[in-house]
């Protein structure tokens, strides 16, 4: 079974989001997603300053068998990206909810994560997908 931490919010397309103490939002892909992809070999993170829309393709995660787009679960401006992924994409496999975060945004509106799924709802999505 995939891990679905209770304190995060999720998108159906298997991204997670976390509000940081300073109001910025951190984004990554879920345990289910990293497991489905297998060993990651490359991560293409968005450029700093890019403004993202909800559901817009903003990053690519690539394994030997697949390259998948990451769709931004939040709208906002990219203020920080996880530089260590360029040399160590395996961080996503090892710690997708921690060291394997992808990027951080300054959210466009305060209501940021309300539209996303909570852990229970996302677990139901996974169950429905057979995962």
């Amino acid at each position: 079974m995939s891990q679905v931490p209770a304190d995060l919010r999720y998108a159906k397309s298997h991204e997670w989001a976390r509000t940081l103490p300073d109001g910025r939002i951190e984004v990554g892909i879920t345990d289910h997603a990293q497991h489905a992809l297998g060993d990651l070999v490359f991560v293409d993170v968005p450029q700093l300053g890019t403004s993202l829309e909800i559901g817009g393709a903003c990053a690519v995660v690539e394994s030997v068998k697949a390259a998948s787009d990451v769709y931004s679960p939040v709208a906002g401006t990219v203020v920080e990206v996880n530089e260590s992924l360029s040399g160590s994409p395996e961080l996503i496999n090892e710690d997708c909810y921690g060291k394997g975060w992808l990027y951080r945004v300054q959210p466009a509106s305060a209501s940021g994560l309300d539209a996303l799924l909570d852990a229970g709802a996302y677990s139901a999505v996974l169950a429905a997908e057979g995962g």
Partner: protein
Amino acid sequence: MNQILEKSIFEYSRSGRSATVQQPPGADVDSAVATIPAALRRRQAPMLPEVSELDAVRHFTRLSQLNFSIDTNFYPLGSCTMKYNPKACNQYAMLPEFLARHPLAPDSQGQGFLSCMFELQEMLKEVTGMKAVSLNPMAGAHGEFAGVAMIRAYHRARGDLARNEIIVPEAAHGTNPATATMCGCIVKEIPVDAQGDVDLDALAKAVGPNTAGIMLTNPSTLGVFERKIEQVAKLVHGAGGLLYYDGANLNAILGKVRPGDMGFDVIHMNLHKTFSTPHGGGGPGAGAVGVSARLEPFLPVPIVGRDGDQYRWLSEADRPQSIGRLSAFMGNAGVLLRAYIYMRMLGREGMSRVGEYATLNANYVMARLRQAGFDLAYPERRASHEFIVTMKRQAKELNVTAMDIAKRLLDYGFHAPTTYFPLLVPECLLIEPTETESRETLDAFVEAMTIILGEAQADASTLKTAPHTMPVRRLDDVRAAKQLDLTWKPVNSAA
């Protein structure tokens, strides 16, 4: 197979050694360089090997011995039609006059070559039931591109600008959606039903005023004939769309059914499959396209035409609505010559037997593998020229995957079938024997499969760690993609 690895050609290289007999006599490099402005000169020689002719011949011959090939092994490779490539096709396509002919030489200096191309166009029209053919595209995917580009051009020419959706069944080759995207179209995937036919209800919902066309392979990639093809054609045509035939599986029906008669408007043919031109370790292919009358004006140029007893290239001036040129000259001419020679040797009688014997061989292997305990993806259906075995049960019960079977087959001297395609069927092996294989070869393959199944039941680790007799064992793909090593570097180089 040779199991001794061959070192890099650069490791044979010695400064100052060369095959001097290959070099032009009397060339004066210094005085040529003197005519080049200093800023435009090369400063450091390229890193090409410096070896003797014998070193080179041995190195590349040894490399060849590390390969499987049709000439040495059976390739039951679904969707790829790995039939025998007759030697005559190569020898007579490489006659000195053909090799020396410049692509821009006038038509008057190529009547022999052009007559072959014209007759090839005519023969391809006959076997596909299409109205006109262009030989220009250089591979299957290139032919697909031409086909979808023609569909778009057709709608545009009628002012039907909204039609930009291409419908693709989910079992289609990956090239189909990739091609539609390259043509600026939006891809709409539709499901197939439990028996492998297109889901007509889903199709009816998918078609509409934005439908440019549908891309179909028939027999489909599932190894079965699309039985509802006439209804599919009616639905798509009724909605104003066109039908595209992916010729990947044309071998299955050659001489039995023609795409033109099924209602298709445009088709590409993989001459490197159905018409036996070599795969060459990944190319060149040739992806001739055929069209119905309404698409003829849009065919890619050049096309060979005939005025009286003279043959000539038709170009943009003759075909102002053409989608244009897809290659700098006129496609893979040498490949086309090989296909021409093959078709002439087969002739009327031989050509109409291709589909029959390809189908006979596929159904025979399918029946025998079923008897041996393998599960079929579509047990109720006839095989076309290929069929699917699914290892889903063995994956669960024995922890062996389709990939393990594929790798173990290499140890028995058989190339692996196509694995993990179509994506729709879990743990699948897509098996296509082709008509050129003898019953004894097919039996030997079935026997190897049977032994492997026994090994899986006895000790799966033999399979999990296969192959055992190849020059290398399974390779670390993750390392290959992460620590990219794409060029040879001298051992003591700083990089």
